[in-house]
């Protein structure tokens, strides 16, 4: 019956063409990107605004950042689309099933970055993992890392705020996911899953091996761009607009006072503020950039960003279908504690 793989994938004669096209795209991208600053300066000079005024500063920020972020996002998403074509949730599950805690948490958090994952898949993924013998804590490490430490967040931080911050975010984000998952595993809360979840016996159906060609992978990258950039560009525009307003209108001293490192309470306040806010990583980073520029402490800003992305009400409502309220509460408490720790550590270390 397995006529599924009757047609072998043959190397397409167009492979060379696709590779050349991709190279051409990258060269074009670099050219456009290198001209952004002069373009923005020229565009803002066309506006009837007085140089140095609040509105001028805000407009300059927006006109430079909007194309820059969209260009960067396109490139990062394209590259990650290709990387992700090597992974799948099913393969990741097979890698994690039966893993011991500890090493399993580390592997799960890391795989969370590269495994393709859509938020509407969160529940099937959770059940699929747990019922196939992936420990609960390890599953949580994956579920925390997947949205929080995603390629969009790290790529944009790298480009807009600097490589040190991007690397630190990557490291601390993974740290929170690993530790929070490990703690949840140690607490042995399996009995707090919804009853029906514990009774699911997953099949371990093998998917037919799907050998992808280089062209397939390039197409996967293009699909990712169409899908993700098509979905998040609105968030980005809103985020950049918010960032532009902060940049243009908020006096520099103000944020240093309320979000500076002296104000210890600003870290928990940032976490609490972040929960009801639901934004994509791509939308929040222009805001992060502007806040840091105005003297807000790094740890506080990172805590805010992690909270917005990792602790969102919509996600909790989705998780509620498989977890009891008690387990959702533990999840929130553990992750929030981790984020708080990151905020304080950062403020102490970098200031």
């Amino acid at each position, binding site marked *: 019956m397995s006529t599924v793989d009757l047609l072998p994938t043959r190397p397409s004669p167009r492979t060379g063409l696709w590779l050349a096209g991709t190279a051409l795209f990258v060269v074009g991208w670099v050219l456009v990107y290198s001209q952004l600053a002069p373009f923005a300066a020229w565009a803002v000079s066309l506006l009837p605004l007085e140089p140095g005024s609040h509105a001028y500063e805000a407009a300059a920020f927006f006109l430079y950042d909007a194309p820059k972020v969209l260009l960067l996002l396109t490139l990062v998403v394209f590259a990650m689309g290709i990387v992700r074509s090597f992974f799948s949730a*099913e393969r990741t599950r097979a890698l994690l099933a039966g893993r011991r805690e500890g090493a399993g948490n580390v592997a799960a958090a890391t795989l969370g970055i590269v495994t393709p994952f*859509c938020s509407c898949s969160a529940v099937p993924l959770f059940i699929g993992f747990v019922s196939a013998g992936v420990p609960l804590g390890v599953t949580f490490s994956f579920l925390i890392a997947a949205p929080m430490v995603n390629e969009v967040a790290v790529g944009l931080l790298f480009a807009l705020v600097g490589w040190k911050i991007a690397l630190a975010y990557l490291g601390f984000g993974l740290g929170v996911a690993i530790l929070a998952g490990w703690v949840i595993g140690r607490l042995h809360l399996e009995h707090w899953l919804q009853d029906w979840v514990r009774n699911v016996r997953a099949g371990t159906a093998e998917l037919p091996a799907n050998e992808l060609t280089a062209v397939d992978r390039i197409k996967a990258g293009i699909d990712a761009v169409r899908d993700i950039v098509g979905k998040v560009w609105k968030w980005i525009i809103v985020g950049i607009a918010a960032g532009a307003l902060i940049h243009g209108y908020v006096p520099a001293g103000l944020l240093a006072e309320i979000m500076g490192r002296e104000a210890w309470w600003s870290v928990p306040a940032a976490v609490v503020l972040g929960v009801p806010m639901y934004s994509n990583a791509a939308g929040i980073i222009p805001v992060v950039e502007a806040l840091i520029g105005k003297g807000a402490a790094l740890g506080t800003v990172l805590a805010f960003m992690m909270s917005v992305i990792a602790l969102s009400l919509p996600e909790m409502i989705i998780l509620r279908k498989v977890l009891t309220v008690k387990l959702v509460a533990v999840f929130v408490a553990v992750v929030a504690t981790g984020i708080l720790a990151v905020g304080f550590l950062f403020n102490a270390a970098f200031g």
Partner: protein
Amino acid sequence: MKEVKVLGPGCKRCETTAEMVRTEADRLGIDVTVEKITDYAEIAGYGVASTPGIVVDGKLVHAGGLPKPDDLARWLSA
């Protein structure tokens, strides 16, 4: 007669996938029934961890993301 099941909680991609299956079957002139499986326990029972998944005549052929039309044609005419 092919029996196709689309596994997914009812998100947009799952709807699109079901539509793609029907379109491709029509194009090939293959008789199909398309059933949407939205029950999480049943979805997990097929062994998928990412949706949408596609089951043709009881056999899982695809999981995660939209299928490619070429692949659909292969699965349906298999």
